[in-house]
């Protein structure tokens, strides 16, 4: 794996840009795919958002100053792209973005690319009850094991704030699953 600062220098030089970008795609495609997938839920939508994300990264790499890690910068772009995608879709359908996500959750049951068990489906439903920011924090912390410091760079929020949001999210999710079990 190429060191980050070497990769960034290559990405910002005209003659090495394309080769460096290939390396970047190869290194980060899967991580970004799964990150986006957890937000938009559908595979085809994720594919669209992922491509847009890499286009944005390529287009804006010259303005990357290295104030944050390249990885967290890309995560931030991917997150924005995924949320923008959901909002645009909701607006076109004249529904709220929460309703758009609820529709996506309902489709999971018949989605050939969702192989989750009943509890995994319930977990997605539980996550969907959280406010958008808590969803992002829970997904990145719980499934991706991203550190609070990295999360702080991605979401531009203090570490203390993230910890408290994550704990609240976990409590809400466990409460949702428990309540649902008793029905």
């Amino acid at each position, binding site marked *: 794996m190429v060191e980050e600062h070497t990769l960034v220098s290559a990405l910002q030089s005209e003659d090495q840009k*394309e080769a460096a*970008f*290939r390396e970047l*795609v*190869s290194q980060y*495609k*899967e991580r970004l*795919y*799964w990150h986006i*997938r*957890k937000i938009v839920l559908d*595979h085809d939508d994720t*594919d669209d958002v*992922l*491509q847009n994300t*890499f*286009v*944005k990264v*390529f*287009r*804006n790499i*010259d*303005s990357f100053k290295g104030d944050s890690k390249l990885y967290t910068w890309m995560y931030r*772009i991917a997150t*924005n792209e995924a949320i*923008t995608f959901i909002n*645009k879709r909701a*607006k*076109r359908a004249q529904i709220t973005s929460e309703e758009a996500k609820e529709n996506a959750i309902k489709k999971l049951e018949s989605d050939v*690319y*969702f*192989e*989750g*068990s009943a*509890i*995994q*489906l319930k*977990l*997605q439903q539980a996550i969907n009850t959280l*406010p958008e*920011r*808590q969803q992002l924090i829970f997904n990145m912390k*719980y*499934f991706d094991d991203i550190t609070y410091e990295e999360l702080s760079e991605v979401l531009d*929020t*203090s570490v*203390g*704030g*993230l*910890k*408290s*949001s*994550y*704990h*609240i999210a*976990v409590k809400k*999710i*466990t409460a949702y*699953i*428990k309540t649902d079990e008793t029905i």
Partner: protein
Amino acid sequence: MNNEHNIPDHGFKAPKGYFGSLDDRLMETIASEGIPKNTGFSAPNGYFESLDERIMDSVLGEEETGKVRPLFDRRFVVAVAGIAASLLLFFSMLQQNSISSEGVQNIETNMLTQYIEEDVDIDLYDVVAMLETEDVTEITFENSLFKKAAVEEYLLDNVEETTLIQEK
């Protein structure tokens, strides 16, 4: 900021090591509730193998066809403003008898908003990339955009209570 090393202003105190072990205890809680660590999502067979080439195609294709004109290129702004003014004048004359001038203004705003939201593939990153420092200093915001009541309403509707507590 309050932590276990400083005496908090409110006088409460947490046990030594409480925050350090909080994450571990939380994970134990999650495990005891049987919350799975995997999402259950899958991708089509061979998807990631062909992904690199498809991304490179769309990125390089975009680069060839999608050269972005600088947002603050003065000649471009003048040209766009001229075309917009001509169109506005044309539509105003065309619809003068049926729609009030207020109506025309509304249509213009709505059309513009809809066009920008649905048809223009540009976001904050694109705009920031095109802005120079002097452009930022030239931007002036109309007070009407940030009326106190509107800001308050926005905060109440969009900011989570917990965020306010956390950022203190």
